[in-house]
């Protein structure tokens, strides 16, 4: 393996590590939400510092590789993609922390019925699946896996959209819990953002592997 390949391999390992770290943060945040585990929520907030530190480190690695090795073609796309995936992952980490903050502020657990109706668990597991596909796609340079992510994002969006009416109905019935329910809506929005970020990451992976730019392409869903 050449010197540059060694460095790129290290970067790949760093990004994969970042994926896993952030995925853990997300899992914990949902768990803390469902069980109202405030200690777990605090743990997430503390670990966010690690996510931020990791982001800075990877930024530095990318900068060094560009400055020292002048990568070209697939290597250059890989470094650029990694740089942007890194920042998407960090924002996903922010969303996990955001959920944890709501959990900390909340005084009572959500109604299990409501959670079921909102398909919150489903939304979460789809988002998690998106992360899994992206990790696999990134690690193996397999863009076909990344292309699966967009459809899942639509599923997440649909759940988010449906949640509007459901929560609105609930607020009408329980006006005293309006704030509480609005918080729930915010949490759902954050989960929806996670889906969007994973879709962005999938775009970056496709850019890196296939040199194809999907960003801002209105018809790209038809192309897939």
């Amino acid at each position, binding site marked *: 393996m*050449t*010197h*540059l390949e060694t460095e790129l391999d290290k970067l790949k390992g760093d990004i994969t590590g970042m994926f896993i770290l952030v995925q853990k943060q997300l899992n914990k945040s949902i768990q803390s939400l469902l069980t109202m585990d405030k200690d777990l929520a605090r743990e997430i907030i503390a670990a966010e510092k690690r996510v931020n530190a990791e982001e800075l480190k990877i930024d530095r690695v990318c900068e060094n590789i560009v*400055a*020292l*090795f*002048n990568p070209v073609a697939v290597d250059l796309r890989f470094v650029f993609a990694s740089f942007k995936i890194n920042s998407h992952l960090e924002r996903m980490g922010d969303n996990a922390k955001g959920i944890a903050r709501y959990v900390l502020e909340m005084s009572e657990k959500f109604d299990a019925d409501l959670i079921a109706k909102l398909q919150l668990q489903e939304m979460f597991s789809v988002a998690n699946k998106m992360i899994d596909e992206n990790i696999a796609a990134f690690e193996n340079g397999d863009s076909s896996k990344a292309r699966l992510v967009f459809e899942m994002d639509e599923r997440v969006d649909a759940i988010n959209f449906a949640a509007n009416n459901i929560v609105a109905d609930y607020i009408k019935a329980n006006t005293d819990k309006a704030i509480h329910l609005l918080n729930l809506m915010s949490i759902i929005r954050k989960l929806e953002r996670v889906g969007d970020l994973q879709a962005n990451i999938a775009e970056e992976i496709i850019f890196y592997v296939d040199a194809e730019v999907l960003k801002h392409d209105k018809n790209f869903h038809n192309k897939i």
Partner: protein
Amino acid sequence: MTPKIETKNLQLYYGAHHALKGIDFSANANTVTALIGPSGCGKSTFLRCFNRMNDLIDGCEVEGQILIDGMNINDKYLNVDELRKKVGMVFQKPNPFPKSIFENVAYGLRINGINDKKTLEEKVEKALRQAALWEEVKDNLKKSAMSISGGQQQRLCIARALAVEPSLVLMDEPTSALDPISTSKVEELIYQLKEKYTILIVTHNMQQAARVSDRTAFFYIGEMIEYNDTTEIFTNPKIERTQNYITGRFG
């Protein structure tokens, strides 16, 4: 940890010309240090201090300490030939002797009085392997070194330097006469060699310095302007002159 090589207030004069002005430098073992700077900045002169090649130049005066493994080699009673056996050197232009490939690598060993055929064969093979040349020449060891390509010749010169098992290897623009493919082969080689050797390389090619070295020293008109980790020099140089040079804004 004692540094592998060190200079303390190194001053060098060519007659009236003050070529190196008080260089304080040190490099650890198993690192690659790149010396960069515009032509005539003293980087090659500095390199040649470590095997006293400047002695060959008339009117060259060196003051200050030059330490290798803690021992001062800037001492007129030092046995310079013995020093040069421990410090390998690779030159700008590939300069294999007009002898066979085998005899080129064996040259330094024979100088050291090693003439046993088996020992020679072992050491020659080892050196050629280290220089990543063995596979290409193993069936043609008797062929003239002049018949192989320029890139192979330069790796042969590296093998020749490595055969006597030096601990420090000096390279004076080793790829300036090579094509890009040969250049990248030599660069890869340098990266691998630092496992066993301490390497000092002078280069005009800034990207080469960036790719192969751990530390980079920037020289300008006889002074060492900035010396730091290569990543720092190439992403965040502390001194403006360094920045101007590496970004190609002067020199």
